């Protein structure tokens, strides 16, 4: 995955670019450089920066007061709470599952390993809408387990549990996919060394495995969290759109927008956008930390 490349090969690439640029033998002609740079920048401004600016601009179209009112509206606050709750449950669980899956795939040989490794990618390859429908079919009133849940008075679909399940499904691959190549590249030597030195399985995990994968794990968790908070499709199917109860932030934005309440919609959207910016900042910090020599890192 490209993520691993940036996480572990960042600094040598930067050095390489510098060297190529200073060397007359490998330097490109000025017009080639300018053309490529212009293309990249134009794309960046048009498709990435502009929309971001528009979000904030629209949010403030009716002034700070209106934006603040939209964000502090009880329904909006309920949506924020639900989003935080869904991410707060889905991300830690996926962290545990992701580490377990990566550990078993990278460290052990077993029957069906290839299938498991492929299945991990399923949430990436399946449309989120279908992911949502799966849960409706399984837990909905007409679904496989629907009767049992109705008899026991447990609501899954069109309720918070369904939203959490859908979020978990969609964000499952992030941690595992980040860790598998990392753990495969590191090999088993360190863990074997710890075991020979008398460490128990748990000691080996806490003292050797976890520190070795900590930056990759953090990186995967950040991406997982960003997706968990921003997920729309799967959550939309299982949510039922009950205001103040089963609306997450992205769903709330959609409702406001459909009601032609543009300023309010963009005000809530700007919260999500800010979340994205924080995520990006965190991600860059992790990359920077991971690429520094160990000695300069503070030991976490």
């Amino acid at each position, binding site marked *: 995955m490209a993520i691993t490349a940036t996480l572990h090969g960042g600094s040598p690439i930067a050095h390489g670019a510098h060297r190529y640029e200073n060397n007359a033998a490998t330097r490109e002609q000025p017009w080639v450089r300018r053309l490529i740079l212009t293309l990249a920048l134009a794309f960046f401004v048009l498709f990435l920066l502009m929309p971001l600016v528009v979000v904030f601009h629209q949010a403030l179209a009716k002034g700070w007061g209106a934006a603040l009112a939209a964000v502090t509206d009880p329904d909006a606050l309920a949506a924020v709470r639900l989003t935080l709750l869904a991410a707060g449950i889905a991300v830690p669980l996926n962290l545990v599952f992701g580490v377990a899956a990566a550990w078993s795939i990278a460290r052990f040989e077993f029957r069906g390993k290839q299938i498991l490794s492929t299945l991990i990618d399923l949430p990436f390859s399946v449309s989120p809408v279908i992911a949502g429908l799966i849960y409706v079919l399984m837990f909905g009133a007409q679904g496989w387990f629907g009767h049992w849940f109705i008899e026991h008075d447990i609501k899954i679909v069109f309720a918070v549990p369904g939203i959490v399940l859908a979020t978990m499904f969609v964000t499952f691959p992030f941690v595992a996919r980040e860790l598998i190549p990392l753990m495969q590249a590191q090999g088993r*030597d*360190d863990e*074997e*060394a*710890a*075991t*020979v*030195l*008398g*460490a*128990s399985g748990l*000691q080996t995990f806490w*003292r*050797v495995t976890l*520190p*070795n994968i900590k930056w990759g794990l953090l990186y995967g968790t950040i991406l997982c969290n960003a997706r968990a908070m921003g997920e729309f499709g799967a959550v939309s199917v299982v949510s039922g759109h009950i205001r103040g109860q089963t609306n997450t932030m992205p769903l709330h934005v959609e409702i406001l927008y459909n009601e032609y309440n543009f300023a309010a919609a963009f005000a809530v959207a700007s919260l999500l956008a800010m979340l994205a910016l924080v995520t990006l900042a965190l991600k860059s910090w992790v990359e920077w930390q991971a690429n520094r*020599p*160990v*000695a300069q890192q503070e*030991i976490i």
Partner: protein
Amino acid sequence: MSIQVEEISKTFAGVTVLDRVSLDFPTGQLVALLGPSGCGKTTLLRVIAGLETADAGRVILEGEDASRTHVRERQVGFVFQHYALFRHMTVFENVAFGLRVQPRKQRPKEPEIRRRVTRLLELVQMQWLADRFPQQLSGGQRQRIALARALAVEPRVLLLDEPFGALDAQVRKELRRWLRALHDDLHVTSIFVTHDQEEALEVADRVVLMNRGRVEQIGTPDEVYERPASPFVYSFLGAANVFRGRVEGANVRVGEATLNHDGSDADHGADVVAFVRPHELDIVTDLSAPNGVDALVRRILAFGGSARVELDGIEEVKAGAEPTHYEVVLPRERAGTLTQGQQVRLVPTPLRVFRQEAA
């Protein structure tokens, strides 16, 4: 501590890696497991450590069957080819690791840990690097730290898997000598795996030669070098000139030529493969000498006190076939009289012959 392995067999995906290997490693010795890559030496070492389970056979540590003992309880020290130092810990913490993970009751107190780690770092002459991280060390320094870490738990056996394999030639030579000196100080029963015959012969008390999952020969470096037990051992332990032919009395007939043999494994009429080391082969310019193989001088490489002469068998050259290559080591002055392209006769001090295996 003594180590015995009995009838160890191991198969990986249908390939037999160890084929009923039985060995006895006496207490206090430094033994080399030597062989080409894929001969099963590393697997055997890992079976002894407990990192790999054998399909059949037993590992006996100090007279006790340890085949079912967990790696943690075997009290072995293991040194990996690529060091396997914990990169997020300082050198000091790496060495202290084995002490810190001990159960609370057995774990030494902090001052005791400090004392023992410091002593080990002094032993490997690395005390000044205690606060560094593995990334900041050279390969040779890393391997010394790995060794100190393995010794920290006071292992009963020290197992080293190609310990110098990842180092460059200069450092390797230096560490070899250092390991030997360290072993003479500590006398921990040690086994080290290597594919470098020079390393094995120079460092070990005893050498175990392995090929294709079997033990070919066991002996002191002198024994295995001077009296190789099989064609494999002969050719693996150094450069060799090979002749294939048939025994005729005191000679071996190789094509048109006849060569003396040492009578070791030579019934009249037997098909044999015969060996002679480059320094045991002489070049004579008198082409009427009674024994020897005719050859053409191809290249003369003279550096230091001796010269290496490379030659091609003349019979094949005449027949237009791919010639047999020979190699001779001579004192430098003698090589000076030869010229490139000259026809000469190669006369071996008696050949070491092995009966040709029916193949």
